[in-house]
């Protein structure tokens, strides 16, 4: 149990630090050793949000789902253009049920990125309230 918690802590720490360092390197567009060290120190020193820690597996899975949703988003945009989707409805999409802020963020991002669905919020059971556009049935 303890080992699993520390694995989660290491994964979350590594992701946050790597993300901050990446942004720093892109902003400065300088990969010199000195700049790297400054970026790494900044990434470690800046305050961190306290949130429930997700398992590394779930984090990777959510990240992968976000990557897969990018081509899907373009496919949906083209479909919307070819065939107008005029019907609106509220549905519910199952989420992982994780309490981790990062996983919830990634899931909301994945749902909202695709143009046919917009997440409106999370329900108590971990699913998402989703506004969806659907095609009119042929008359």
């Amino acid at each position, binding site marked *: 149990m303890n080992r699993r918690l520390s694995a989660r802590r290491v994964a979350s720490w590594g992701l946050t630090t790597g993300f901050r360092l990446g942004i720093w390197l892109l902003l400065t567009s300088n990969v010199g050793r000195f700049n790297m060290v400054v970026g790494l120190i900044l990434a470690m020193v800046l305050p961190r949000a306290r949130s429930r820690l997700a398992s590394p597996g779930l984090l990777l899975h959510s990240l992968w789902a976000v990557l897969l949703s990018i081509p899907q988003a373009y496919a949906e*945009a083209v479909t919307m253009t070819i065939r107008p989707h005029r019907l609106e409805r509220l549905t519910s999409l199952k989420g992982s049920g994780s309490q981790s802020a990062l996983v919830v963020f990634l899931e909301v991002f994945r749902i909202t990125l695709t143009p046919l669905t917009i997440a409106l919020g999370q329900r108590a*059971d971990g699913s998402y309230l989703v506004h969806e556009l659907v095609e009119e049935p042929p008359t």
Partner: protein
Amino acid sequence: MTMLTTVVSGLLLTSGLMFWLIGTWPLLGRSSYLAKLHGLSVADTLGSALIVLGLLVLQPAEWPVLSLALFSLVIWNTLFGYVLGFCSRRRTVPMMDGAEPSP
């Protein structure tokens, strides 16, 4: 600059502009607030991403700035879409915890 990069970046920029036109056109119509948000996700997020990708092909030396722009555009546009949807729900659609919402 080779012919290929010109053609590829031209295609990306044109398709991005097309997405922008397609996505912003419904804003002028009478569809509902949330339906307009769906269109905006086509224009704002996907169209802008294509335009920045086109610029990236055109000016590969500027990749740090352009990839930062691409990243921020995609994240912020999507998140603003969610925030606007979330705020609209408070007024129009009550959160139905546990119950299946009616269509």
